[in-house]
């Protein structure tokens, strides 16, 4: 049975602070009865306010949760509490045959994943009428092309009039043109334009950043104009940047990369009612990075559970791109415990290059894909330090990277406390000028730095 879970990882699964707190409160042995475990399943019964105890179970292979309580949160406090109990005192769980209510669920999960696998291996038989599809694509192409021409003229207008007065313009200037791009079915362009509104009002240095972003968009438009002359992966990149989403089926048809993927970092951002989660993976055999992007609405949980610091034995397929990072999970080992124990600090130490090596690969990536927004940096033997008001990372040669200037002080101090002035291994997102640290390894232990 796996005992690799730590309470921090478990609590990171909580949908909100209240659930974490309540889960903690319930993670006490005497509140539970018939705690059991079999292969990758654990279960238990928790006495709640109702007459019958709630039946809670976890399939650790994902992990996936199920509970008979009426809570709409996911995982619910019972699921979290059961998981915490396992992480903290696994000796309380008796190895035994699962009771019916557990066995049924496990069976239904296995069947479901088999069906899914079947579906993926079967060629698509009932593809929609190819003629109609081509027609729809052509119509969209036309719309996008018109949008691109419109935006090109708009950008040139701005340059003709000069950028100096932009900070005095209202946000509406940007909203209007962004809305036009949404109409033109180019949401990727719309997002970049909305971001620009923030850049223009960002204070000192705004004009450099604004011109750089505008020229990036222009480069994108130029590329689209002669898209047919470009290599296929650049074509795909341009479509992605414009926001011409490629279907998951199409992505999954690509080449699969099997590896033991270490989850090196995760970041969840709230955009209005939408939660956006970036999970960064590092393939230990292939030494490649990958990023899984997930979305969840409102209180809804993310579909798959991905715990930073743990490993995922999976086949990934990359989205076609000039510099492939974003990927989808094609298959994931289900209901089977990991065959290898996840590597700790030493495993990572061996796998990654020095700061200069990482910078070199960043340069390559940027040259291949000028529109790259975050680059994963896995850094070996760097020392965090405080320099006036700045936080820096310094490597053995004395080279430094600045950390995010808006880093929460608490995070900076935690980094400093963990290192004590000694080198550590760190993972973060590099945006070309600043690094947002997401995780650290010190003395074999993994620490997620909550943002």
């Amino acid at each position, binding site marked *: 049975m796996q005992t690799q879970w730590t309470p921090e990882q478990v609590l990171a699964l909580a949908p909100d602070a209240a659930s974490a707190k309540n889960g903690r409160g319930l993670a006490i042995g005497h509140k539970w009865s018939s705690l059991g475990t079999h292969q990758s399943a654990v279960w238990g019964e928790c006495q709640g306010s109702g007459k019958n105890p709630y039946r809670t179970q976890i399939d650790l292979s994902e992990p996936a949760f199920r509970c008979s309580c009426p809570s709409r949160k996911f995982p619910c406090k019972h699921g979290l509490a059961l998981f915490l109990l396992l992480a903290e005192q696994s000796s309380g769980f008796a190895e035994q045959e699962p009771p019916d209510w557990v066995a049924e669920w496990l069976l239904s999960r296995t069947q479901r994943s088999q069906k899914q696998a079947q579906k993926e291996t079967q060629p698509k038989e009932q593809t929609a009428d190819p003629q109609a599809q081509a027609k729809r694509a052509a119509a969209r192409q036309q719309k996008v092309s018109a949008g691109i021409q419109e935006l090109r003229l708009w950008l040139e207008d701005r*340059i003709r009039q000069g950028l*100096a007065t932009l900070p005095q313009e209202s946000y509406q200037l940007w909203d209007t043109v962004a809305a036009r791009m949404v109409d033109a079915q180019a949401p990727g362009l719309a997002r970049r334009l909305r971001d620009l509104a923030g850049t223009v009002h960002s204070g000192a240095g705004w004009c450099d950043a604004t011109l750089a972003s505008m*020229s990036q968009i222009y*480069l994108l438009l130029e590329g689209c104009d002669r898209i047919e002359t470009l290599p296929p992966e650049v074509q795909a990149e341009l479509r992605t940047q414009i926001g011409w989403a490629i279907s998951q089926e199409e992505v999954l048809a690509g080449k699969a990369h099997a590896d033991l993927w270490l989850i090196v970092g995760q970041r969840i951002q709230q955009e209005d009612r939408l939660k956006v989660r970036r999970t960064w993976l590092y393939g230990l055999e292939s030494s490649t990075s990958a990023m899984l992007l997930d979305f969840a609405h409102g209180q809804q949980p993310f579909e798959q559970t991905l715990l930073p610091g743990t490993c995922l034995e999976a086949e990934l397929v990359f989205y076609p791109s000039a510099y492939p990072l974003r990927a989808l999970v094609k298959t994931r080992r289900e209901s089977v415990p990991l065959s290898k124990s996840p590597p700790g600090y030493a495993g990572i130490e061996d796998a990654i290059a020095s700061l200069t090596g990482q910078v070199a690969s960043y340069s390559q990536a940027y040259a291949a894909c000028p529109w790259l927004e975050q680059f994963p940096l896995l850094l070996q033997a760097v020392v965090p330090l405080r*320099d006036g008001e700045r936080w820096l990372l310094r490597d053995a040669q004395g080279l*430094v990277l600045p950390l995010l200037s808006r880093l929460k002080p608490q995070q900076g101090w935690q980094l400093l406390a963990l290192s004590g*002035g*000694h080198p550590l291994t760190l993972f973060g997102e590099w945006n070309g000028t600043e690094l947002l640290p997401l995780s650290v390894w010190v003395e074999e232990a993994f620490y997620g730095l909550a943002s």
Partner: protein
Amino acid sequence: MGWQADSPWQAVVSAALLGTERQPFTSPTAPGKLGQLLAQLTSHAPESALLTAAAALSLHQRAGWFPENYSGSAPAPCSLDDLPRCSTRAGRFLQQMLQRQYSPVLPEWLGLATQLGQRVPDIYLPQLLNLGQQQRDLRSLILPVLGQRGRWLAAQNLDWSYAVEVATEADWETGSQAARLLYLKELRSQDPERARELLAATWSHEPASDRTQFLETFRTGLSLADEPFLEEALTDRSKEVRRTAADLLASLPESRLCQRLAEQVQQHIFLNPTQVPTLTVQLPDSLNPALIHDGIEPKPSQFVATQLGEKAWWLLQMIGATPLSFWSETWKIPPAEIVGHAKDHEWEAVLLEGWALAAKRQQNADWVQALLGIWLAEGVVRTPVLPDVRLDSLLNILSFNQQSAVLVDLLKSGPGKVNDFLTLSLLRSRDGWSLKLAETVLDHLEDYLSHQNPAMNQAWELHAALKEFARVIPIGLLPRAVQLQEGLPPDSPWAASVREFLALLRFRQKMVQAFEVTDSG
């Protein structure tokens, strides 16, 4: 990102700010392939040429970016020869309390870690140091568990300076008033002689308010060796300094001040050796300058004046500065008998409060027990004449076992009930209970909670007190405490409070267990 001042990029930015309709755009020059690319742009429309040049230049800059060399100096790394960290599990309890769950138990956590010679896991240091910054009273508990790592970290943040290595003699010479005070305090606990010499050297130049504060440090390590200095201070310009000096001298029963007051006081209080001995009290008619010199204050405060006249106030202070041994040696009877004679006397308040003040100053456990014997037997709340001579502060003078014994007696044979105000306030002011006291309180609680509907006026007090009880009950009594819950009648109004009470006890029990495990096991 560092753009150079007269770079091609700067030229493009300037042109973009101005706009191509005001000034035609000419593509900047650059060496190498970048220059070739820029040169090709002449055939483009000006706006297109500008945006394309900007795209090429910013991409060129970004892709060619290289980290800078650090020129500053970083602090030396922290020594790795440090206290062992507490177990991961124990650390998690700390984390929970730092997130304000069960935070009243934090002092116990810090105490346990200190006892075991362990330190806080590194990642929690910033939060703990912040907490110490906000809550002064936690600092002395936090300091021993920081380890080298914690002090190393604190040295880099001004907000955490309280946790950095102690003040030095240089601080005394040139530091801020707070640093000087800190240094003097520390020195006082290690080398009181040296501390006094340092202060004496600068005494006459210090401002009055600082002199009072410096003098307060004499409470640590106070001895007869301090007497000459304090006698001198009795003639100080500042009234506050004089008052503090008199108070300190009155805390030294062998001091000349105490002897002088004993001589005075024996002219006013007599024990008549009749068959039933009685006390005679003659209030002083006037206050001579010698007594004022020795710190007897002529005017009572407004609060004291509501209870005592002027002359009674003088006598009370004189008793308060008389060595307690004087009474038992003169009259050849023990303290309990002496205070018994004062009971129900016309001047009971003057006598008992005076002795209480002396007992507090002289830290005399026998007298405290004698006084508590009288005051607790009545079970009524006494209003102390002097606010710093409250029952709970008198109780603090006793040893831990004595304190618990007094409270057990109060509950078992005295008028004490677990829900009365006096008993509750004394129980709540203790930092720990003996096993016996905890058992006695649990017996009372069981009886009270299972049989009585809570009276409205006392209920709230007890609800709040239950949480504090859970902090001081020895955790070995957890099974006994669980019975409390089982004995509750259905729908008891106490159910929620008792549940919280038990939750806190269980939390403590698990916390103690967490210190017993090691990470490797």
